[in-house]
């Protein structure tokens, strides 16, 4: 910049800088105080001239305090927030008019002398906003109103304070001025430029202009002064019209980190045209802040991540899971887990425990089907219910469990359906036919809408329909059943048709591909009938060691997760060591592992010796639940077929040919189910 040429003085515009706490407080005020009122509210901003970067006007939660208390080394700016009730009002508001109205108030402060008393009025700003509190989105637009006055010409080069003669004297003089008066003040120099005095703005004397440096805290880091000097100049020229056409000196005070002010700038300026600020009707105003794209327009910020508790929980849960990925299992696919929809038949001991384990793994979609109410004995074992649910007397398990899951993790998508699961051999009377058909409709729809199905009911025959539907719809089916101190967790053989490599054959191990594995009923030679019929009460109720259900539920969920990580998912082969070769232990060590270890067909365990075995069995061609004749009959006849089987279980035995089998000598078929005395009860 050459010294002999007059240049137009430019200003560094303000940049708004909002603390998250500003939005937090705005939300609180809107909800608890303002409600439907959208009247304007005074706020305070602050800016610093110490080690300043940019030209930042900052607002945080203290902005709404009655008396502004700027942070250390900062100065207060007086502002207003216009928070509108709707986005439409926010958009429709006449922005030019609002800016002009605000500008006129600024001029009024100037001419009333109010500015002399409180110079922070010169840094007037306002925010137009709309807070979408449901979505935690904030639309806002800052403005720093300023009258459009004739241009200021810069006379000579911009000087630094340290380059002025006797600059040390200036610095000494400034030290005597209290920090809160250092936003706008006068630095007085005598004739010889030797004696300096810092005076407050109210001491302004028009005649002494040659002796004055009009000083201000300057948040600019550039050669230009900050925007606030525009209003300062306008005010001084309005206060002292004789300054028009005269050279006036301005000092922009800037501290570095060590509180030295050597880098402060001095501008000598002149405004040659007069401007009558007392006729605001004639004046135009400028000052809307540009948005991030450098355009005239508002900004929008989504604060969901830090303000929505549900989002906070979701992120924290995800982080926990990600830690597992980062630390131990880099290839863990968390996406597939969060997308897999799970349908739980039964919301009792097993259902509750499975659902909670699913939440822990980051499953989002959980639906429960159950017809029961919460009873007094339930809450101690069924970990989604409380005593109060039982006292209420009418709380249905399915819906209560779904609600509890959302209370635990608000971002879970859960549902509960109260319904009976129709069972083979459980005749449906005329009066219940319509209801049964309704329930069937819901069950079929739910199976179709989910990816993985858990069988967690309390009887063997109630597992028949879900087994069939799972197979018919090519879903992943995980089954868990309990004995007194034993448990069975298994995955049903898949019916999904997908080309792919079969399992690798390994010496000493038998390999069964995922589509050849049996279901829960494949090992049975009788169709399910009424298994509760001839039992005493203690046999019908939950008679299991309490830990059994938690163990089985955990295995069930872990088995699903392990399957989902396999490239072929439920089509993954299962291996088991063939017994009777004397090498089964050695062979077991060779079972190929997936990402999370082996993928067994079934896990059978006992608490009495704390042991598990992991056998795998083939599909049974005459299975009463998953064999081709059954699936075909269902495909062809639909509900008519189902209703026939509900009428009499014998129908299934005839259809599949099991009746024939039963006539044969049973010695030729070695079923190992009895070995564990699996009673299917797991809850009442």
């Amino acid at each position, binding site marked *: 910049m050459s010294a002999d040429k007059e240049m137009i003085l430019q200003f560094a515009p303000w940049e708004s800088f*909002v603390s998250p706490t500003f939005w937090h407080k705005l939300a609180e005020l809107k909800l608890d105080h303002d409600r439907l009122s959208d009247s304007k509210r005074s706020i305070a901003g602050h800016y610093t001239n110490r080690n300043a970067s940019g030209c930042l006007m900052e607002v945080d939660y203290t902005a709404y305090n009655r008396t502004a208390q700027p942070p*250390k080394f900062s100065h207060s700016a007086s502002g207003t927030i216009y928070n509108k009730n709707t986005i439409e009002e926010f958009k429709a508001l006449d922005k030019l008019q609002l800016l002009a109205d605000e500008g006129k108030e600024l001029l009024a402060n100037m001419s009333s002398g109010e500015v002399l008393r409180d110079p922070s009025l010169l840094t007037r700003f306002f925010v137009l906003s709309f807070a979408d509190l449901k979505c935690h989105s904030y639309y806002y637009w800052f403005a720093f109103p300023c009258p459009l006055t004739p241009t200021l010409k810069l006379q000579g080069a911009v000087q630094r304070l340290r380059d002025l003669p006797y600059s040390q004297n200036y610095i000494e003089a400034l030290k005597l001025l209290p920090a809160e008066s250092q936003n706008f003040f006068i630095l007085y120099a005598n004739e010889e430029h030797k004696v300096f005095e810092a005076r407050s703005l109210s001491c302004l004397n028009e005649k002494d202009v040659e002796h004055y440096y009009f000083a201000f805290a300057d948040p600019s880091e550039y050669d230009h002064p900050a925007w606030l000097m525009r209003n300062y100049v306008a005010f001084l020229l309005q206060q002292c019209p004789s300054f028009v056409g005269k050279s006036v000196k301005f000092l922009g005070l800037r501290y570095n980190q060590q509180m030295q002010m050597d880098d402060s700038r001095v501008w000598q300026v002149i405004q040659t045209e007069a401007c009558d600020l007392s006729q605001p009707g004639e004046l135009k105003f400028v000052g809307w802040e540009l948005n991030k794209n450098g355009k005239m327009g508002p900004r929008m910020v989504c604060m969901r*991540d830090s303000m929505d508790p549900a989002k906070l929980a979701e*992120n924290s849960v995800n*982080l926990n899971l990600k830690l597992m990925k980062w630390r131990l299992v880099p290839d863990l696919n968390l996406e597939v887990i969060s997308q897999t929809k799970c349908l739980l038949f039964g919301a009792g001991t097993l259902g509750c425990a499975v659902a909670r384990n699913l939440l822990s793994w980051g499953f989002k979609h959980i639906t429960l089907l159950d017809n029961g109410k919460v009873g007094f004995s339930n809450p101690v074992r069924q970990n989604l219910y409380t005593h109060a649910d039982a006292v209420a007397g009418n709380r249905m398990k399915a819906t209560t469990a779904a609600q509890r899951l959302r209370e635990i993790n608000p971002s879970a998508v859960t549902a509960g359906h109260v319904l009976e699961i129709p069972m083979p051999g459980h005749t449906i009377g005329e009066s219940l036919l319509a209801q049964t058909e309704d329930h069937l409709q819901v069950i079929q729809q739910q199976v179709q809408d989910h990816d993985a199905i858990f069988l967690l009911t309390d009887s063997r025959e109630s597992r028949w329909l879900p087994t069939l539907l799972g197979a018919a719809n090519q879903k992943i089916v995980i089954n868990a059943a309990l004995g007194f101190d034993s448990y069975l967790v298994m995955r049903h053989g898949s019916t999904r048709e997908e080309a792919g490599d079969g399992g690798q054959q390994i010496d000493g191990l038998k390999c069964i591909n995922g589509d050849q594995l049996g279901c829960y009923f494949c090992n049975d030679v009788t169709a399910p009938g009424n298994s509760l019929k001839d039992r005493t009460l203690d046999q019908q109720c939950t008679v299991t060691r309490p830990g059994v259900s938690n163990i089985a539920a955990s295995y069930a969920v872990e088995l699903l997760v392990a399957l989902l990580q396999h490239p072929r998912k439920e089509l993954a082969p299962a291996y088991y060591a063939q017994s009777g070769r004397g090498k089964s232990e050695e062979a077991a060590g060779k079972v190929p592992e997936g990402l999370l270890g082996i993928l067994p067909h079934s896990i059978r365990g006992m608490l009495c010796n704390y042991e598990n075995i992991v056998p795998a069995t083939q599909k049974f061609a005459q299975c009463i639940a998953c064999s081709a004749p059954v699936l075909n009959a269902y495909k062809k006849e639909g509900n008519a077929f189902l209703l026939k089987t509900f009428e009499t279980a014998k129908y299934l035995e005839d259809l599949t040919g099991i009746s024939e089998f039963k006539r044969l000598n049973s010695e030729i078929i070695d079923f190992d189910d009895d070995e564990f005395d699996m009673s299917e009860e797991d809850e009442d």
Partner: protein
Amino acid sequence: MGDLSWKDFLSQAKQFLEISQQLGESWMLVEKDSDEPNTFLKFSQKIKDNSGEFVNVEYHVVYSISYQVPMMFFQAHRSDGSLLDLEATWKLFMPETKANDLYQILTQMDHPVLFRPFMALHPCRTAEVLKQFEQPSSNQVLTFISLYGPHIKLNLQNAYGLSKDYT
């Protein structure tokens, strides 16, 4: 022993505050109540992110009861008030480090005083590190900040080390 008792943390934090005030710095002591560990040192500054935009970083030096060492919690926000999430924080402070290593250094944890998720430098090796500086250092809080701060662009002036109160 690199361990620090709560009482020592508190008195050293206050001593640190005095030094910083003498140096004209804007550190503050935030006291929620008088319980352990509800008092912490706080500082904020603006830095520029990779695209040249300003972010404000707020640093909290908090006492960790379980590790018995000072812990560095911090959080950065942009000019619109939005917080930088873990990935963005990594990118800002440790752009060269691989994600698998980062979680061990810089991760998200619940703030022990504010009970909100905050970014944190992992405290598991702090005691060990501080131990090495025990002899020349009588103020472990100061040692801690000067050692851990630079990883997240918090650099103390040399003058802290020269302060008379401290040596």
